[in-house]
């Protein structure tokens, strides 16, 4: 049997899913889109049931990728029962989707989630009455506490077994007449959703279905258009609103009959936004919260990084000395150890606390608030408020930063925020900035590099926006209420992203390290230096930096390690002037994101975007470094 979870964003659907799925869930990608759904297997009354968590959606019209996934899934896959989750505190809005789902003609159960929150707000819902009115089972739930989950699944199992179909909602008589007329023109066979659902979707103007009907059956397309014109004329409403207003009317009538509002108990939580979104204090809180977040991540990361790196360096030496050789085998083994340690000692110590902290901020509802506060600033570089998230993440590691661009709906916005986020100096580049510039020149010079970085990113953003103008009119997003996240949801979400790093980016990092070791063994480095010589002359850098720059593509902090190896000394002041150090660091900060980031860009945005962003970063790095050099030449 297969059950699907469908609900609007922020209805607690994913909390429910994580409660039953644990950490075994698989993410699947729907062909042609990047919006994914998650599936898992659960045992219900002795049966193994496939449970699919579809992306949150307000309606079933396929006008954005998330909705498209839901509708396409319902059209193409056999589903035994729909579990529709709605938020008890927004009953009317939730029921509009419920009514739409009932039209599909699949067995269905309605779950009213967040009953505790509703109680706090003084909302009482008569589930039994609602069940009688809708003709489908209605069950209460508090997913965060695991209450009502067992009952929900056993009821769904029974409903799926009996294959009892819900009755679709009835609209006003004019609309019903039109639906009937078009329905009669559609053939019955070969459909996975009801004919009525198809007709209603056509009347609502679903882009994909309309296109298909236009191509295959122009007579029906014509009929739909005629009926729409008639309906719009009768009701003097725009076509988009015909069905939506009807559904809202039915949902409102239903809610009126089953919902009672008693006294509300306003708490600090309801007044939190007066402080956190305050025109002045809001930004102070933002700064404080983000500083705390960074401090926590860096503290945790560096606490683990040092002993882990020591361990791997010792292991490396131990292996080399026991092998009694500096031959190819030893180099390969050493390269493997370095690749493993790169992931385990340098990326994961920052990635894990980062993702958990981020998941926490996201689930509590603060990320949306950051987007609200930062929207104006982000528009200056051609993005809107949501793009602040990848930027914040970028300072820890670019890999989760790229993954987080998923929250942007627009392709152009996703590309631009990914491109700019890869230029944000991650923790690995921090080691170069601090190990070279701060150590030899001073902390102020290091701060200068960070500020210069922000300046260059803004200029790049503005230039790209000039060629790829912003076409989204601005921010549209729902502000969730503050909610205390469950540990389970936060860790499960972090685990999904960590797993992607473990199984996709990390192996490539290890292979890359081995290839480098082999290259090193056959002294290919000299050729690299020669090939890069004109480039180093342009930037006024010593020719030995060629290989470290290439190595840096694999792991940014490697460029510093390899610099020591290339010069044969760790006293960089003896071999490089402070100006050269700054130029080198500026270049390292901007050029090609590391291999792990490139792979992530490929997975998230495609191969073409990966090469575009790579080329862009090299270009920006060269220009940024040249500007610094010219500055030094003049002053």
């Amino acid at each position, binding site marked *: 049997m297969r059950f699907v979870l469908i609900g609007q964003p922020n209805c607690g659907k994913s909390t429910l899913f994580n409660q039953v799925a644990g950490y075994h869930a698989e993410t699947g990608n729907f062909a042609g889109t990047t919006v994914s759904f998650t599936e898992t297997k659960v045992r219900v009354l002795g049966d193994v049931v496939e449970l699919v968590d579809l992306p949150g959606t*307000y*309606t079933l*019209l396929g*006008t*954005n990728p998330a909705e498209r996934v839901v509708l396409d899934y319902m059209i193409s896959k056999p589903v035994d029962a729909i579990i529709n989750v709605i938020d008890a*505190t*927004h009953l*009317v*809005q939730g029921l509009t989707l419920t009514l739409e789902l009932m039209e599909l003609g699949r067995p269905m159960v309605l779950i009213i989630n967040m009953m505790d929150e509703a109680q706090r707000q003084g909302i009482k819902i008569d589930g039994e009455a609602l069940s009688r009115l809708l003709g489908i089972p209605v069950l209460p739930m508090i997913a965060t506490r695991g209450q009502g989950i067992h009952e929900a699944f056993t009821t769904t199992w029974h409903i799926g077994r009996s294959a009892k179909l819900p009755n679709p909602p009835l609209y006003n008589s004019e609309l019903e007449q039109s639906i009937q007329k078009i329905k009669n023109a559609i053939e019955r066979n070969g459909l996975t959703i009801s004919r009525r659902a198809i007709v209603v979707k056509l009347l609502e*103007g679903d882009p994909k279905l309309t296109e298909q009907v236009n191509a295959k059956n122009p007579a029906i397309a014509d009929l739909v258009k005629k009926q729409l014109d008639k309906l719009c004329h009768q009701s003097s*409403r*725009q076509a*988009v*609103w015909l069905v*939506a*207003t009807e559904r*809202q009317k039915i949902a409102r009538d239903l809610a009126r009959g089953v919902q009672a509002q008693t006294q509300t108990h306003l708490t600090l939580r309801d007044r939190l*936004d007066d402080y956190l*979104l305050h*025109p*002045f204090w809001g930004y102070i809180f933002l700064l404080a919260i983000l500083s705390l977040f960074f401090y926590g991540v860096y503290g945790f990361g560096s606490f683990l990084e040092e002993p882990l790196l020591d361990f791997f360096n010792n292991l490396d030496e131990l292996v080399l000395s026991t092998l009694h050789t500096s031959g190819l085998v030893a180099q390969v083994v050493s390269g493997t150890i370095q690749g493993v340690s790169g992931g385990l000692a340098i990326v994961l110590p920052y990635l894990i606390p980062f993702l958990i902290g981020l998941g926490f901020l996201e689930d509590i509802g603060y990320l*949306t608030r950051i*987007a*609200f*506060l930062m*929207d*104006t*600033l982000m528009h200056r570089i051609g993005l*809107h*408020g949501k793009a602040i998230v990848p930027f914040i993440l970028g300072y820890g590691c670019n890999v989760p930063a790229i993954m987080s661009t998923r929250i942007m709906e627009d392709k152009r916005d996703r590309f631009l925020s990914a491109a700019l986020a890869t230029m944000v100096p991650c923790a690995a580049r921090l080691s170069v900035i601090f190990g070279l510039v701060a150590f030899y020149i001073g902390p102020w010079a290091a701060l200068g590099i960070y500020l210069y970085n922000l300046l260059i990113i803004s200029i790049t953003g503005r230039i790209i926006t000039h060629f790829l103008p912003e076409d989204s*009119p*601005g*921010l*549209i*997003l*729902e*502000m969730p*209420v503050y909610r205390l996240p469950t540990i389970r949801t936060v860790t499960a979400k972090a685990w999904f992203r960590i797993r992607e790093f473990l199984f996709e980016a990390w192996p490539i990092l290890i292979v890359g390290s081995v290839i480098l070791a082999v290259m090193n063994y056959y002294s290919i480095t000299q050729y690299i230096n020669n090939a890069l010589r004109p480039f180093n002359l342009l930037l006024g850098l010593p020719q030995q930096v060629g290989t470290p720059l290439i190595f840096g593509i694999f792991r940014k902090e490697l460029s510093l390690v390899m610099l020591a190896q290339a010069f044969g000394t760790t006293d960089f002041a003896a071999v490089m002037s402070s100006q050269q150090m700054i130029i080198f660091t500026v270049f390292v900060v901007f050029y090609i994101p590391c291999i792990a980031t490139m792979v992530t860009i490929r997975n998230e945005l495609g191969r073409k975007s990966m090469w575009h962003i790579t080329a862009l970063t090299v270009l920006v790095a060269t220009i940024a470094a040249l500007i610094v050099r010219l500055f030094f030449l003049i002053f």
Partner: protein
Amino acid sequence: MTLLQVMNGKWVRVVGVAGGIGMERRLAQLGFLPGNKVRIIRAAPFRGPLLIDIEGREIVLGRGVAARVLVEYI
């Protein structure tokens, strides 16, 4: 009158949405249907986005979007 011209805290009613079918649809999903009650709760500084209360739900709208929501006083 557009939503952008309404004073903070004042309840108004949605009349329509100007700005193409895509915008009409997206806003309709969030409750911007003719007749629904809407209010600006607060605005972000520096001409930032608006926090809107529509039928009990809180929605953030950029000013460009808010300028396309047509409203009337109740």
